[in-house]
Structure formats: structure tokens, C-alpha cells
């Protein structure tokens, strides 16, 4: 197939993801409520208890709301990525994934397109969150709104690839919710989203080590630095590396038979 065919296919996948998102308005509101609750309620409570010293990329003392805002952006991406993976398990069970896989394009391209499309759909959520966060004095420099975009896309696709990799091992939809509890919450809490890693190191060395190897931490830091117009080479390298690694692994282990194997011996045709 020609290059234009690849572009058309990606546009089709993106359009479908966007249409599905528009039809599920509650998904937009729930994706906004979660981080805003953290910002308005959780951060308000912790503001007094948790002082933040001057750390990169900030050039002055900051409030706790300012600190957790990038982590909450990453949280939007994380939930979106896991929801997208959940929809892949659902699609695989319900059969609509077959339509995607019967395209004459390479499977890796189709899966990567789906990941990228679901991340692009999350971008308006990120900007809506940043607009509301402004009311809480989270005021990054104006160019930061532009610089954060590639960081959001990169981190979002990486989280999507991790979600896809995990979902490849899920045989049935019911098992997925349980797995998410073991993925989303540990990934979020064991990262620099809510507290700087040096604070974590003060209380627990092994927890600090776990946070330091968590890809989500690097996604958060990539977004944090980009939002304030700084470049974090380490975060970029880790996020890019994890994106590549998990995409390759996800494509290698992706098996549409997985959702069917359990059914076939009892209900084949």
C-alpha cells in the first residue's frame, strides 16, 4: 500500500476514536473530575503539610498545587491509556478489533496508530485541565503550553504501549479491572507525581529506588520540565526507550487468538 494509504488509515482510526469520545461525554467529565479533585481537595490539604523547596525546573518556591499539576496531567494520560487498553480488550472480546486487524496494513502500524489516536484524543482533556488549573494559580509561562504538547504525546503513547502490553495478557474483560488496580495506583503513587523523589528518599530508600525506575516518573518529569520551558534529556531518553520497548513487546505478544482460545473448544463453529 502507498504512503497515502497509511495516512488514510491513521486518519480513520483517529476519527473513530474521536467520535467514540464525543459519544461518551461522561468519559470527558470523569477524566476531568479526577485530577481536579486532587488539585482542589488533596492539594489544599497537603499544601500546609508539605513544603516544596526550590527544585528544577522551578526557579522559585512553589505551591503544592503547582508541583502536582504535571503529575495530574500524567494521571489524565495514564487513565486514558488504560481506558484505551480496556477498550482493546473489549473490542477483542466483542469482535470489532477484527475489523482493525483485517486491514492489509502491518499489525504494528495499526496498533501504534490506535495508541497515537487515543493519546491525541486525550490532548483536549489536558488543555482543559490546564485552563482550570490556572484558577488554582498554576500559571506556567505561555510558551510552556506549546512545549508541553510533544511531551504529552510522547508520555501518552508510552503509557498506551504499556497498557497494550498488559492487555495482551488479559484473556477476558473481567480480569482487566483487577489488573488495573495493580498497575494504575502503584504506578501513580510510586512516582514523582505527588512528591519529589528526594522526599521519598528521606523516608524509604527502597521506595525511592522503585520510584526511580518507574517509567511514569519520567513521563511526569518530561511534562514538568516542558511545561516550564526546560529540557530534561534523561526523561526524554527513558520515555522514548520505554515507548519503543513496550511497543515492540506489545506487538510481539499481541495475539487476537487470546480472547478466542477460551471460547473455541466449547463454542466453535
Amino acid at each position, binding site marked *: *500500500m*502507498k504512503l*497515502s*494509504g*497509511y495516512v*488514510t*488509515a491513521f*486518519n*480513520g*482510526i483517529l*476519527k*473513530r476514536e474521536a*467520535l*467514540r469520545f464525543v*459519544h*461518551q461525554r461522561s468519559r470527558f467529565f470523569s477524566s476531568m473530575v479526577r485530577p481536579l479533585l486532587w488539585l482542589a481537595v488533596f492539594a489544599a490539604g497537603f499544601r500546609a503539610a508539605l513544603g516544596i523547596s526550590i527544585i528544577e525546573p522551578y526557579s522559585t518556591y512553589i505551591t503544592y498545587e503547582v508541583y502536582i499539576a504535571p503529575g495530574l496531567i500524567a494521571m489524565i494520560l495514564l487513565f486514558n491509556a488504560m481506558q484505551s487498553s480496556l477498550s482493546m480488550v473489549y473490542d477483542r472480546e*466483542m*469482535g*470489532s478489533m*477484527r*475489523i*482493525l*486487524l*483485517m*486491514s*492489509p*496494513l*502491518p499489525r504494528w502500524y*495499526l496498533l501504534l496508530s490506535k495508541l497515537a489516536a487515543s493519546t491525541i484524543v486525550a490532548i483536549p482533556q489536558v488543555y482543559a485541565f490546564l485552563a482550570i488549573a490556572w484558577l488554582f494559580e498554576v500559571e506556567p509561562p505561555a510558551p510552556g503550553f506549546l512545549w508541553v504538547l510533544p511531551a504529552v504525546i510522547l508520555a501518552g503513547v508510552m503509557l498506551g504501549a504499556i497498557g497494550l502490553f498488559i492487555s495482551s495478557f488479559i484473556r477476558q474483560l473481567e480480569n482487566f479491572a483487577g489488573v488495573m488496580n495493580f498497575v494504575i495506583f502503584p504506578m501513580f503513587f510510586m512516582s514523582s507525581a505527588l512528591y519529589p523523589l528526594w522526599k521519598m528518599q528521606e523516608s524509604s530508600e527502597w521506595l525511592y529506588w522503585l520510584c526511580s525506575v518507574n517509567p511514569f516518573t519520567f513521563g511526569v518529569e518530561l511534562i514538568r520540565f516542558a511545561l516550564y520551558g526546560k529540557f530534561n534529556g534523561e526523561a526524554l531518553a527513558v520515555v522514548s526507550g520505554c515507548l519503543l520497548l513496550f511497543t515492540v513487546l506489545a506487538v510481539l505478544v499481541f495475539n*487476537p*487468538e487470546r480472547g*478466542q*482460545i477460551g471460547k*473455541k*473448544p466449547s*463454542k*466453535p*463453529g
Partner: protein
Amino acid sequence: MPLVEVDQLSHQYPGKLALANVCFNIERGSFHALLGPNGAGKSTLFALISRLFRVQQGDIRVNGHSLKQAPAALLGEIGMVFQQSTLDMDLSVQQNLDYHACLHGMAGKLRKQRIEAELQRVEMLDARNQKVRALNGGHRRRVEIARALVHQPSLLLLDEATVGLDPQTRASLNQHVRSLCDQQGVTVLWSTHLIEEIQPQDPVTLLHQGQVRANACAAEICRQNAVESLVEAFTLLTSPAQKQAAQPSESGINA
């Protein structure tokens, strides 16, 4: 040269042999029935043809394209209607077809033309802006057929497409697909376990427990088994006594 060649195809699930050395051909422009009881291996065969499952042994060629050597070219040759509906219920009829056409890399103008032509063909053009959720079962099937034909495949696969439909809708759908063969030269592989959907002149491949038990036109299968009807032949060929039957030759049966 036949349009489809299924050659020594075998597939194994953990602990179960689903297909064993399956061989048969499908002629161009024919309505070919794949008949078999539940568990015969029909859906497995379809999943292999559509590359949803990896081929473990054997090969399938459609219009000369081998599944092993040129899978992308082969996928471009087939359109499929699955047993379970694979339409997106929240999208409109047109949006569902548009998504499928995009996945086949069709450009905007051509996409629009083909979608209109196929919806016209299945008499669903007026419903193009309706959400799929609002359609009845028979109309959804028509939309799925239109979608399967949007990219102009040479082979239309229907995997028990009439399951869950009332008898009248089932007959109408069967008739409609036959008209696609007769009037427009579409080649169809129609999988079913419902014998009344098959007519005496139809080429039939009878599958049972993963093996081809008969491969001839329906009337010929009856004649060779010395029975009056295909129902009797089906009962005879899928009876426990046939369990150990060997693979038949391409042209005949081994009852």
C-alpha cells in the same frame, strides 16, 4: 483456476485439533456453502483465512495470493461478515463503513462513492445517517455486507451470518447474497449449520470435527450417499460412526 484454494490446512488449540488437513477449492462467482455442526471448525477456518489466527500448517490462496507469502494482498481480496456483529453501535452506518474504507487506504472521493454504491446495493442508503444501535438485526447484517464489499474484494466470507435472525429475515438475507453472486459475480463462502439455507446446485464443503467429510454440490452429496435429502446426508456424515473417517478426495465424499 479456482478463486480460493485451501491446501492441507491444520490448526490446533491447546488440547484440541480444530482442523486436520482441510483441502477444498472455491470457484469464481459461486455461492459455496461451508456446512457443519457447531464445533466443526468453520469459525476457525474463517479466522485463518482472515489472518486473525496464525496459520500453523498448510496454506490458503485467494486469487493467487498466498496467506503465508502475501498476507496483505490476500486481505485486500476478502471481505468478511462475522458471526457476531462487529459494527460500532454508537456510530452511524456511514461512519462504520467509512472507518472500514479508511483501514483499506481508500482515498476520500473514492470512499464516498463506494460507500454510497454499496449502501444502495443493500438498500440501506436512506439509513446511512442512522446510528447502528437503531437498526434491527436484519438491517445490521445488510450494513455489514455493504461494509465487507466497500473495498471491492473478490471473495465475501459470511460466518453464520443468519444466526439470531428470524426465519423471514434469514431467507431474505440468503436470497440477497445469492443475488450478489448471480448478478454481480461476487464469490461467496457461506458458513452455516442450517441445511435449509443450501440449495441442491450449491457447491458444499461439509466439515465435521475439523475434517472435510464431503466436498461436492449438494445434490451430488445426496446421490453419492444414496439418500433423498441433504439433511439425511448431513446426519449420516456427522454421525459417531463417521468419527474415524479419513480425509476425502477433493471431488467426492468418503461416506
